[in-house]
């Protein structure tokens, strides 16, 4: 997978041919003993910018010890319904491609829950990775599944914690409703206008 394929991981800049930036899935880990979970998506020209954007959009307030980004179009996904509707699809998958690589497996377990890390499989292509994931983690009743190559993921490092995540923990959160500058200003302006009248 080259620069175009993974959107340019750390240190690489991909040349944009579209005016739209690709979408990256953001996976965050709140504590060391909890799995990575889907936090949302960001747009970015490349993976490094996606990681920075992910930090600002998703982890400024809540706890975070690790952040991953992966280009959304590199995630191979199937829902429980899709798999039930076409059971023959899984059987039609043959090993294809050259060498196996490691894929992360994520699953969504409840309607309201987020996709969470389940494990890893070695496979030659995404479809086969999913098939192996269903075999390996068959006891998990996933409503939907994601598989994507480990090497497509840009991850924060333990060194990033100090600058990326730690400062946010010390900050107070003030709700938008606590900011009154504009309404106070309007009131003062009205008062001034009234007093200016003869």
């Amino acid at each position, binding site marked *: 997978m080259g620069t175009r394929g993974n959107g340019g991981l750390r240190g690489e*800049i991909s040349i944009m041919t579209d005016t739209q*930036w690709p979408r990256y899935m953001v996976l965050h880990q709140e504590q060391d003993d909890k799995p990575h979970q889907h936090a949302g998506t*960001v*747009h*970015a*020209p*490349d993976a*490094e*910018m996606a990681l*920075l*954007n992910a*930090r*600002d*959009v998703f982890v*400024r307030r809540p706890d975070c010890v690790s952040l991953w980004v992966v280009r959304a179009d590199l995630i191979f996904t199937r829902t429980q319904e899709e798999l039930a509707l076409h059971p023959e699809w899984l059987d039609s998958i043959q090993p294809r491609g050259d060498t196996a690589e490691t894929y992360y497996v994520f699953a969504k377990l409840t309607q309201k829950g987020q996709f969470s890390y389940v494990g890893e499989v070695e496979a030659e292509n995404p479809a086969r990775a999913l098939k192996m994931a269903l075999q390996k983690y068959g006891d998990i009743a996933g409503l939907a599944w994601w598989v994507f190559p480990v090497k497509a993921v840009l991850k924060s490092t333990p060194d990033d914690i*100090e*600058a*990326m995540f*730690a*400062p946010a923990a010390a900050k107070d959160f003030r709700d938008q409703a606590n*900011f*009154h*500058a504009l309404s*106070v*200003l309007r009131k*003062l*302006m009205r008062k*001034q206008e009234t007093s200016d009248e003869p």
Partner: protein
Amino acid sequence: MNPELKQALVDYLLAMADDELILGHRNSEWCGHAPILEEDIAFANIALDEIGHAIVWYELAADVLGEERETYANRMVYFRDAPDYRNTQMVELPKGDWAFTMLRQYLFDQFEMVRLEKLAQSSYAPLSEAAAKIRTEEMYHLRHTQAWVRRLGLGTEESHRRMQTALNEIWPHAIALFQPSDSEILLINAEYVPATSALKTEWMERIMSYLQEARLTLPQTSVVPSRTHHTEHLAALLSDLQQIARLDPMAKW
């Protein structure tokens, strides 16, 4: 602390605070106008961080003077006129385009980083403690602005041209960051602060290779403005920033 040293320290802290406040306010003008939503959030965060750092420095100055922290900070921010501000012209210039904003922030972040590393070793404990704390946030700012400078410098013909134009305009103002104040020597002797002019070598080393990598060329340095002279842009910025407080000094918001 003798009165001269005290005054020198307050002057130094105020200059730092004013830089952060004015830059933070300028950056906040992008709120709702940044190129994309994600960046809007990211850059508003950076703006808030800078204003937060300004508060830290104003409050340290208040402590040195034995004044009440919030009262002092409010007085400094809302009730000083432009000529009394000690920020560099670099931070008061209008926000310009995205290239200008990113390059200014990058050059300033790198300056701050070099200075904070030294201030973290200050013999004046409140200063070293604050510097160490602020430094972690600046590490992130730097990563963010560096990323943009590189991408804009190496991006399209237009983005490169805008970056070079921005660099030409900002450069003399960036050099002004390294002008020492008159009383700074007292603080250097007390090992409170590093010599500002000595920070320049380290800063130049860090930014030169990076700007070259982004294919940007340094212009010749022309006249370097001082901290006691301001452009007309500062008064305009302050009239916005101070609007409520000047209409009603007792207003709460």
